[in-house]
């Protein structure tokens, strides 16, 4: 895992210098964070193939993107799920203004924000990652919420943006036995850069299901870091679906602070054309009897490129950990490329840690079976592709599930 990337000034891009130079002076509740992020970006190199964590992921698209703050756009979505609370959020203003929060959901106080902001990023070891510093430098507000003990909340966050930069920062505290279904849409409707940093702390017995649906386009990039900290007996599921981004980099990271929690990670990325999608996940068990269930899937067509790196750390304290990681990729073109790598670091000796990776094309026998029933080759391939994706889609929270039919994902991907 990279910490800060000390590098010569020459490695910094002129585009980044230019952007930093024209940013308004740091202000508002996040001023100190902005200062820090800007300073960090000035002092570190833009990640490149020379950095192990970025070996396959070319960031050159970033220098071509418009980086003025993006205006909000309207996403075509069905009405909110019954009982769900939907917020439109573009990072530039307070999305809670004018809203009465539903029972169980509260705004964090300035003191709580000061105390909590960055805590989980640090625990998950990514507070100095380049995409996080980029968010630090740009984000003007933080959406900071608490789900109170034993409450059940269903939240929808919709962030659709026109051309430019959208920087979103989210801080969530789930108290004991609180439950949160969080469906989140990030959608680029024009060229631009979308930066998302999520921090969630789950107290004992809390449950989170987070589904990120990120729909982009060829001249848009997504940089998303989702960090969660879990107390024992908590249950967290992080699911992300990405399609269409010229460049997408996702870093879901979970730390079980005393083990004995349950973490589920689900990922699906679709790449076509010359697009790149890269997921670098990280899970660390700091105590015994933790569980991980991870499934990452990729569909690569055209000259698309998919990268998956799944790090799992099981130190000596994490005896009786039970972790399973599976990466499955579907290669639809001989010019597409898949790089997938498990990265298991296991010191404890009494653990179960399974991992596996498959890369395949559509199965001839399955295609033939469907064709032999009158289903055309293209439609058969579509059915098989949908089946491949369904395994991830079906685990999304309900609202997120309804936002991403496979037709939509494929339409965006191409």
């Amino acid at each position, binding site marked *: 895992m990279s910490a800060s990337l000390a590098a010569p000034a020459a490695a910094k891009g002129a585009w980044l210098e230019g952007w930093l130079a024209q940013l308004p002076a740091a202000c508002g509740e996040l001023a100190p964070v902005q200062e820090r992020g800007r300073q960090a970006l000035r002092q570190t190199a833009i990640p490149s193939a020379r950095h192990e964590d970025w070996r396959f992921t070319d960031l050159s698209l970033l220098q071509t993107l418009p980086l003025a703050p993006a205006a909000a756009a309207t996403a075509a979505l069905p009405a909110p799920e019954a009982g769900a609370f939907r917020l439109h959020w573009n990072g530039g203003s307070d999305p809670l203004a004018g809203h009465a929060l539903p029972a169980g959901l509260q705004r964090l106080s300035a003191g709580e924000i000061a105390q909590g902001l960055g805590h989980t990023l640090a625990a998950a070891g990514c507070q100095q990652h380049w995409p996080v510093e980029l968010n630090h430098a740009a984000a003007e507000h933080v959406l900071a919420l608490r789900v109170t003990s034993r409450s059940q909340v269903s939240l929808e966050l919709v962030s659709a943006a026109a051309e430019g930069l959208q920087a979103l920062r989210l801080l969530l505290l789930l108290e004991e036995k609180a439950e949160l279904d969080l469906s989140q849409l990030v959608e680029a409707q024009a060229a631009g850069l979308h930066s998302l940093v999520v921090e969630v702390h789950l107290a004992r017995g809390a449950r989170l299901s987070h589904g990120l649906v990120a729909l982009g386009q060829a001249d848009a990039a997504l940089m998303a870091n989702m960090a969660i900290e879990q107390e024992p007996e908590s249950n967290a599921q992080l699911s992300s679906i990405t399609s269409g981004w010229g460049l997408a980099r996702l870093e879901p990271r979970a730390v079980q602070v005393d083990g004995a929690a349950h973490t589920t990670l689900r990922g699906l990325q679709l790449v076509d054309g010359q697009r790149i999608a890269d997921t670098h996940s990280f899970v660390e068990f700091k105590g015994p009897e933790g569980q991980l269930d991870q499934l990452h899937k990729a569909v690569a067509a055209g000259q698309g490129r998919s990268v998956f790196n799944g790090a799992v750390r099981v130190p000596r304290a994490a005896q009786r950990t039970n972790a399973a990681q599976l990466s499955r990729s579907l290669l639809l073109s001989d010019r597409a490329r898949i790089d997938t790598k498990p990265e298991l670091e296991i010191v404890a000796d009494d653990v179960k840690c399974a991992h596996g990776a498959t890369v395949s094309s559509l199965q*001839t*026998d*399955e295609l*033939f*079976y*469907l*064709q*032999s*029933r*009158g*289903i*055309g*080759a293209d*439609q*058969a391939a579509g*059915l*098989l592709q*949908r*089946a*491949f994706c*369904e*395994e991830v889609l079906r685990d999304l929270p309900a609202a997120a599930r309804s936002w991403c039919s496979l037709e939509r994902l494929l339409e965006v991907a191409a």
Partner: protein
Amino acid sequence: MIRPDAPVLLEIRDLHARVEDKAILKGVNLTIRAGEIHAVMGRNGSGKSTLSKVLAGHPAYTVTGGSVTYRGENLLELDPEQRARIGVFLGFQYPVEIPGVSNLEFLRVSTNARRAEKGEEELDTFAFEDLVRERLKVVQMDPAFLDRSVNEGFSGGEKKRNEILQMALLEPLVAILDETDSGLDIDALRIVAGGVNQLANADNATLLITHYQRLLDAITPDYVHVMAAGRILRTGGKELALELEQRGYDWVDQELAALAAEVA
């Protein structure tokens, strides 16, 4: 039911085919008329299954000679899906499991593809559910199977029943059933054979591919063909199957040897 004046549905002439570099079919001749039930018997490796896959258009097999005409049309130049749509059905020996594709949706899409070819209107979800529930009775299948993924986790018998259910929905004119009896216990065999008998009529034809007489106890064939070394060696009535059952396949080998000596 043999009627000499019934229209010819399938005409196979001197069919040669190979898989990779291995020649498997070496001159198959077979004529199938409407209303007929044919059985092709033979040892493993005789070319029975290859014949069925070639007729359905499996991409792994290459036709190297001969012709197959279906109702006057060159079947071999059609894609597998087109063959299915015009009424050629292959019941698989090993039906493929497709996790994530719902059986109900699969059945609906395929049924509609066949209906479109016949100029019939597409069935929406509700109309199709009514149809499928009625056809389930043909193979005494539990509707719960509709909600599962295609063949996923089905027992051997359930998979074969699902094949016959597909046949009941697609209403083919030529149904080729490749070892439909394999892996079935007595009860399942009775149900599957009952389904095939219910679906057979004066306008369609069935080609059963099997090792064993026991399927032919349940489905009475009009013709029995013995296949060996990629050809149909002998053709007879249902008594030929009984003869095979009694004498085994050894005499087939002797006939083959005699044939080889003749050619030499």
